[in-house]
């Protein structure tokens, strides 16, 4: 942890201030958690940055309006994932299926000056992973992303997806199996 991070206000302190209308505090919440919410939204909505931006915006506006409803039972991060997920579900209900734009994912790979070939390979693998995820049913995809990429616990995923922990285990098990099958051809 850096000195700046140690001195930074906690999520609880930022929520307290934001509840009182402090937009700077809410801006700090957006800066702290927004990139990961946007990343999650992007993968959830088949790599569409326009849709992910809309979902993330709507989720944070919901958070701003609904801070009083945040009870602190879960972490702020989990609550925000929950809002992003809900907005993504709303969007999916109202939108036709959109094709995946492979080029959109190319920049998601950290560029490596040491081994450009490796970066290229990772980029292709990431594209393949997104294709595999796109084939998963909604809840399996969400559970897989929250567990494998965002590192949430089963209980946190259950909170974010509004389902029992047992259901999370089921979705994750099936999602992992399907993703592994789809990625097997790269071996």
């Amino acid at each position, binding site marked *: 942890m850096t000195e700046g991070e140690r001195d930074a206000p906690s999520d609880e302190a930022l929520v307290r201030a934001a509840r*009182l*209308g402090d937009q700077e505090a809410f801006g700090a919440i957006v*800066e702290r958690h*927004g*990139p990961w919410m946007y*990343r999650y939204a992007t993968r959830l909505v088949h790599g569409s940055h326009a849709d992910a*931006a809309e979902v993330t*915006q709507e989720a944070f*506006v919901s958070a701003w309006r609904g801070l009083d409803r945040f009870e602190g039972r879960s972490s702020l991060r989990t609550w925000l994932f929950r809002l992003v997920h809900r907005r993504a579900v709303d969007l999916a209900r109202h939108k036709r299926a959109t094709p995946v734009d492979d080029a959109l994912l190319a920049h998601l790979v950290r560029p490596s000056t040491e081994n450009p070939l490796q970066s290229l390979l990772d*980029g292709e693998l990431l594209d393949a992973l997104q294709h595999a995820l796109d084939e998963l049913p909604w809840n399996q995809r969400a559970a897989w992303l929250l567990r494998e990429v965002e590192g949430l616990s089963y209980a946190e995923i259950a909170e974010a997806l509004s389902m029992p922990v047992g259901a999370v285990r089921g979705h994750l098990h099936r999602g992992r199996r399907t993703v592994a099958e789809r990625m097997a051809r790269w071996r």
Partner: protein
Amino acid sequence: MAVEPTDPLVRATIAAREAPVPPEWPRVAAAIRERVRGVIVPAAPVLARTAPDGALTFVSTRVVVAVLRARLTGPDFVVSGLDLDVDRARLLAARVTVVVRFGVVLDEVADAVRATTEATLAELLPDADPAPVAVHVADVVEGDPRR
């Protein structure tokens, strides 16, 4: 030298996990801030002044809360709630909820919070009848309550 994982799924998952912040994120963040600025927070007008000619000046509760939030700050407490009871543009009561540092004398913190609140209300609403100010200590925490 670190050993690179050879399993493609493991490699792809690690690449996904370590992906940098998308370059368009600052634009998305700016759009969020703009949207938040445009959200209208529920508020009520409070009678602040009555001029000799009968002209009335009202101040929004949003303004009162913003000023109180800025002034009610100290190393031993943090404000976690500000409720203004307004009826027909009259401020009937104010309630300030605070989280206090462990070890401080609660009465002293409450008195200081109440005094600042009363002074601020008198300044912002000079012609309003003084409203009772209740201070509610909601929690006591170790360390700096502002963090």
